[in-house]
């Protein structure tokens, strides 16, 4: 009778004992598999928390002399982890003229002092791909009264304040000139490249300007919005359209540093002269607690695995030691030590294979139940309604206004399955070895006489 047959007979005859061992193995492997599945799901859930908290940075390339072109923004948008590049814009000041070259009037009341030299007919000039995303419209209460917003592809257009329109008799459809002068730029003999723009919209401010003591050219009433092409033409005719600022939104705020580091490898931009401001306050506030939660899970999993290993080893040792009598009989009958050892291993493996196989099913059921009944599979809604992409060329217009969360999946992965099977088998072989070695060292006579 070979050891396999003996093992099979022992397992089938002693049904109660086999069943007990089966349950112990099943329960322990289910425990470990379930823990692994939940651990991976916890990582995803933590990622979801980070994603819903959001993170972005403002890229300020004002001092790079027009290096932040649409082409560069495209490259930034292509960096893995970047959700989108948004609200690319520039800001400066410009002098306003009518189409026949006459200076236009700007509002002067409410300003702290008279006009500064060169700025007598000037105001703030904002350049936007999508003017509705400008901070003035999103945060400072500007509202469009007439006409439409500046959008992608617009050239030679402008939005003006209703007071400015009234003061100069401008209406939607009229044109005027954006210009610069040497005094403004502090350059002698400056030759300007004026740009003619068409008024496509008129706005008003619904909130009082907070800073009451302004110079004339920062007054809300004297602010003009234009498209990036006109802006570029005005400041540096013939150049590729550029931006001074852009918002870069990332999926996972924990990756802000790596995204910025990768961005700085893009060539053609003097990154030393540009400036990055992080907007990740919510993540920074939550960071420590989130990391602690992650560590708690790690602690739990480590404890569970160690305890499971020790427990299994103990039970198996107990199991084999209960068979000293039998071992002695076999040895006295002349069976080889390896043969007896193999029988023990085979007996346990017969049961273990079934238990391990079933543990995949049981842990999957547990995991699925946890997923279905416990978790809230919702996407966080944000107030954002704009669904347009805001750079001229970068990205695709795909944002739906909801934070795209990673799907929370609790499943048993093949790697974990393999881990449990290999580790389980290893523990079985080692435990049997440890338990049988002292017995094997004895003479059959000693064994039989040592049994009480």
């Amino acid at each position, binding site marked *: 009778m070979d050891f396999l047959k003996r093992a099979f007979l022992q397992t089938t005859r002693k049904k109660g004992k086999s069943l007990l061992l089966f349950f112990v193995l099943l329960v322990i492997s289910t425990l470990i598999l379930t823990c692994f599945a*939940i651990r991976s799901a916890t990582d995803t859930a933590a990622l979801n*928390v980070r994603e819903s908290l959001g993170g972005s940075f403002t890229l300020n390339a004002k001092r790079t002399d027009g290096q932040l072109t649409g082409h560069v923004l495209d490259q930034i948008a292509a960096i893995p982890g970047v959700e989108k590049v948004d609200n690319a814009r520039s800001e400066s000041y410009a002098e306003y003229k009518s189409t026949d070259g006459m200076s236009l009037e700007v509002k002067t009341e409410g300003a702290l002092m008279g006009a500064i030299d060169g700025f007598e007919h000037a105001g703030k000039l904002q350049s936007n791909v999508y003017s509705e995303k400008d901070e003035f419209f999103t945060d400072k209460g500007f509202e469009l009264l007439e006409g439409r917003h500046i959008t992608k592809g617009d050239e030679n257009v402008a939005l003006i304040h209703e007071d400015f329109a009234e003061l100069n008799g401008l209406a939607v459809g009229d044109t005027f000139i954006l210009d610069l002068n040497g005094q403004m730029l502090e350059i002698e003999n400056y030759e300007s490249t004026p740009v003619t723009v068409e008024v496509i919209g008129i706005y008003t401010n619904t909130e009082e300007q907070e800073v009451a003591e302004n110079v004339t050219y920062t007054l809300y009433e004297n602010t003009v919005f234009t498209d990036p092409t006109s802006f570029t033409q005005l400041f540096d005719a013939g150049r590729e359209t550029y931006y001074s600022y852009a918002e870069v939104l990332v999926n996972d705020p924990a990756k802000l540093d790596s995204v910025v580091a990768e961005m700085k490898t893009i060539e053609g931009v003097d990154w030393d002269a540009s400036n990055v401001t992080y907007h990740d306050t919510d993540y920074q506030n939550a960071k420590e607690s989130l990391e602690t*939660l992650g560590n708690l899970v790690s602690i739990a999993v480590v404890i569970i695995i160690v305890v499971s290993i020790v427990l299994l080893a103990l039970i198996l040792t107990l199991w084999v030691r209960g068979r000293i009598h039998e071992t002695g009989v076999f040895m006295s009958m002349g069976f080889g030590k390896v043969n007896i050892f193999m029988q023990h291993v085979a007996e346990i493996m017969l049961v273990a294979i079934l238990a391990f196989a079933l543990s995949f099913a049981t842990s999957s059921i547990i995991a699925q139940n946890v997923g279905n009944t416990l978790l*809230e599979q919702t996407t966080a809604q944000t107030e954002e309604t704009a669904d347009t992409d805001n750079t001229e060329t970068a990205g695709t217009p795909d944002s739906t206004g909801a934070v795209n969360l990673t799907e929370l999946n609790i499943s048993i992965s093949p790697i974990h399955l393999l881990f449990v099977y290999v580790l389980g088998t290893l523990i079985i072989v080692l435990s049997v070895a440890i338990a049988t070695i002292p017995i094997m060292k004895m003479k059959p006579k000693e064994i039989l006489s040592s049994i009480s």
Partner: protein
Amino acid sequence: MNTPKRSLLYVIRKRSRTLLLFVILLIVSTLTLSGLSIMDATKDTSAELRESTGTSFTMERNLGTATRSNSGNNFVYQQEFITDEMIEEIAKIDGIKGYNAKKEGLPDLQDVNGNNLETIVYTNWYDDPILKYSTKAFASFNTSYDSLFTSNKFELNEGRHITAEDENTAIISNDLAKKYNIKVGDKIKFALTEEFVAVEKEKGTSDISVNDVEVEVIGIFNISSEQSDKQALAQYELYENYVFTDITFFKKLYSTWPLGMEELKEGYESVDFFVTDPAQLSSIMSEVSNISSINWDNFTLTANDEVFQQSASSMSNVEKLITTMLIVVVVISATIVTLILSMWLKSRVRETGILMAVGISKYKILLQHVLEVAVIAVFAFGLSYFASGMIAGNLGSILDSSISAGNVMVTVSNFILVCAVGTLILLLAIGISSIPVMRMKPREILSKMS
């Protein structure tokens, strides 16, 4: 030989079996106890995570129900202000951890000896004797809840925040501190200067006189967010010239200017109240709106919980997952103990048969088994208290130093829970696995054995 003696002899004679059961019980109870401790730590940390969203609600004067009167081109709204009494009443409610309201003023900066100090200059366009020394001062209850700090625009990098108990204290910018070599603990003065008073008098204010108040600098902040349009701002509008002080200081400073004082006395336009647990926000707000001493027609309450709303479901998922994992651990531990005990008792069928045959009652045999396990369990449970404490603490410090050993703590109540439930499981396991053996006659048992 009585039952306890038999149990004790069994436990002592079968040393290796005893040791094995002891080790198994120790391991399982340690696992369970560590699991429960981690579960507690998870709950605390999740609460911290929710709290980190900085959820608050704002009480504001309701201009919708205000009386509106025309004065020239401007509308003047007449509405009740939020008073100190109202704030105190609301702050008493459970779950509100703090509040902030502020008043603004533009006092001039002076050294302790009363010499005017020029504030930070960005452009020289404002070479105005009145504005040169002015700062923008905020009288605040609790600067740690000020939006400039909560939004991380400013960061306190030395000293401490101003609280409601502080009197005559100030937090100034790093730039201002550097310019005049001011350190935390130093004294400076804020004043209604002669020049300022002269200008006000020229404008027609008759009852105003020069005043100054000494304050202690208790904190210095860093500006971490660049201000836009700096060149267009008045000197006091620069972040560098922002100063945070307390309400008492304001009342002292403006005591010589009845008009300013009146504004201070009337109360606040709006107050932000911060809650500990954002999940409780709506119930706290409804409790607030039930305070009868406040006329709620005159005020509005707005929740500021966008951040929490966005991340609430993901946050609760993290917590639920960890809790579930630990519940699985506890349940499975209990199952393992039951299985092992059954194994243990099954191997003693022969002994049971012999004992029954010599006329010892079933009840006594059961008692013997219970006593044997009890003796072992008492030691195992006791030791598990210390073992789990060590494991939780050590693993915490190995994995990450930010979790102090005190964070994952084995509490006495958890220990009692494990002991009680553990004892119950042991009793049940012994009971259930004894039933088949006990039902048999001694002869059946002995003949059944191979």
